[in-house]
């Protein structure tokens, strides 16, 4: 396969990508096998991300593909099969990619992008825990709150492409998160809730038919997105529970206790502890009903 053919094929794969793990892996595998043509394939990936005709759902899926690709590239390079293809190129393009996946007018990819960026960050030496924590916090400033009071538009801050692209990517993401918090607060403050029953078509009718900007989702896209996100969520849970055990030991080992119990569990704070005890009391009700005689 020559470079041109490989690029066309990858472009075809990415344009029709669905977020099931098999498809993502297959696409990443294709890119890795042809990593000698990275000079052609990397621009292909970026072209698709930058293509204004691509729907947002697909862009989100492609970002998930980038997440998988980076992780696989690291994994196989550690086994000396490749020499870290795509990593540098994708990393320096991250700010640009994030801006495409999260356009100004639409935040529907926010959470997925966060999850992927968090996965990607694990592979690099830069400590991103500060940004991960911040993403969960209230990012609104005093100024924002007074703007919300005055029902004013959100004005994004211009980002300065300085420092490491990964850090810049996080900054853009946090800015988008702030925007989404701002817009939600503004909406809650200044519009009235509907009491009437809204029929389904009207509810989904966010995008006007004549709007060709691809920034808002149609009903079909929303439904397929729900399906896709379910798939992505399933994927994220698939390996959470994995416990690696020593092959040579025929019974449980100290290491399992250390990794999966001792270092994982911590003393609960007061409110969590209360909730924990409440759950146990709830359990007692089931237990008491199980015996014929009164035990306690």
């Amino acid at each position, binding site marked *: 396969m020559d470079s041109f053919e490989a690029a066309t094929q990858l472009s075809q794969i990415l344009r029709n990508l669905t977020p099931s793990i098999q498809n993502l892996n297959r696409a990443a595998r294709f890119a890795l096998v042809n990593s000698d043509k990275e000079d052609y394939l990397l621009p292909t990936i970026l072209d698709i991300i930058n293509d204004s005709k691509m729907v947002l759902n697909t862009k989100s899926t492609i970002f998930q593909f980038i997440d998988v690709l980076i992780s696989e590239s690291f994994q196989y390079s550690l086994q000396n099969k490749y020499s870290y293809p795509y990593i540098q190129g994708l990393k320096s393009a991250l700010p640009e990619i994030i801006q495409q996946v999260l356009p100004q007018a639409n935040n529907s990819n926010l959470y997925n992008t966060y999850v992927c960026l968090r996965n990607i960050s694990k592979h690099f030496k830069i400590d991103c825990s500060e940004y991960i924590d911040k993403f969960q916090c209230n990012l609104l400033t005093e100024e924002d709150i007074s703007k919300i009071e005055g029902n004013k538009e959100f004005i994004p801050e211009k980002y300065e492409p300085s420092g490491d692209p990964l850090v810049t990517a996080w900054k853009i993401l946090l800015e988008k998160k702030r925007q989404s918090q701002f817009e939600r607060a503004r909406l809650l403050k200044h519009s009235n809730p509907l009491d009437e029953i809204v029929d389904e078509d009207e509810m989904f009718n966010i995008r006007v038919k004549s709007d060709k900007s691809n920034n808002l989702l149609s009903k079909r896209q929303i439904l397929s997105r729900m399906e896709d996100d379910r798939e992505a969520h399933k994927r994220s*849970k*698939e390996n959470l*529970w*994995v*416990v*690696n*055990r020593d*092959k040579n030991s025929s*019974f*449980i080992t*100290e290491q*399992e*206790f*250390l990794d*999966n*119990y*001792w270092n*994982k*569990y*911590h*003393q*609960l704070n007061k409110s969590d*502890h209360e*909730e*924990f*005890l409440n*759950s*146990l*009391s*709830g*359990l*007692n*009700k*089931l*237990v008491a*009903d*199980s*015996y*014929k*005689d*009164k*035990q*306690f």
Partner: protein
Amino acid sequence: MDSKENTPNLSENGKPVITITQISRPFFTHSEISYMHSQTIDESKKLQYNQTKYQIFQLLYQVIKQLKFPLRVLATAMNYYQRFYLFHKFDGAFDDMDKDPYVVAITCLLLASKNEDCIKKLKDLQSVVNKLRDIDENKPVTNTLDSSGDSIAYHELQRKYVLATEFKLLQLIKFDFSNGANSLSIKTSVDCLLVQFCKQLDINYRMSILSWLICFDIMSTPLCLVIPPHCIAVAIIIISLNLKPQEIKLDHHEIGEEDDDERLSEILDSIDCERDFKCPEVLVNEGILYILDYYIHQYSHSVLNNYLPAIDKQLGKEQIFKFMELKEKFIDLKNMNETSCKESLNRTDEYLSKWEFTTASKGIARFMLGNKRRRFNKELDIQG
């Protein structure tokens, strides 16, 4: 007015339909369990039942190791396996898939992996189990589910039986999934609760791992059918703190753990199972006595045996004597109330008899959790 609609107990042609309501009872007293076993396991098969159980649990441990499942999947699978034979006849016929305990074991693992939110495909479970048992999955066998006598690949037939058994198992656990990872917003498996409790009590590394090892041993016993997980966890902690062995074969150590004895005694004295962990005392007592009995009889087969030295230095005797000493100490603990579990009463209780799987297809069988029962009281009264 009652807002809940009653289920019609008349069929369309006016004939009454059998309705059976099965309330989930996750826990039974020891005498109920031995009564149920007497119904499902012939006297002559008792030894075989125990041996098979031991072999199957060993196998399950190898399976979860290969599939990288956490221990709670193993614990739930073993719980299901033992629950299954409370209500289902044990034949021990390995060549007949309908009665094969290994089919039951795969089914238990399948359902446990679902309930514990660690989902694997049945095909993957089968292939690991069959490989460990040295069975060629692809060999053609006669399709015993089909009268035509055609042959079918072993794993395909096995799959059909597993899925049929799964439906049986669901009826036997009364569709009660409350011991799983998702209920109650906390993980209710003994291993997880135990370590959380140890952290709450600020128990050191050495005693925590001792408790965890005991927990692994107790996981395979029927104690999980008798008392709830939090009571098992507290019972284990109390025993560990009483044992307080000076030597455990460990690779990791915490600084200062040698001088921790006094503090551990204080922790032990301060434990109030009701206040600290919402554990009814009588159930914890039951657990303590059961666990001590287990080690008195099975110590040489236990995992703990691999971690403790053969002779206890303080006592100058074999470890087993330590458990006997403790048993002596705890002999006067108040046991569970079994007034209504006499043999003669058990015989009249249909809930404890073998479950007829045809019931559900003949009439209406409804399964519910104990605490949801009140909702249907009115309806049950009507039926008298």
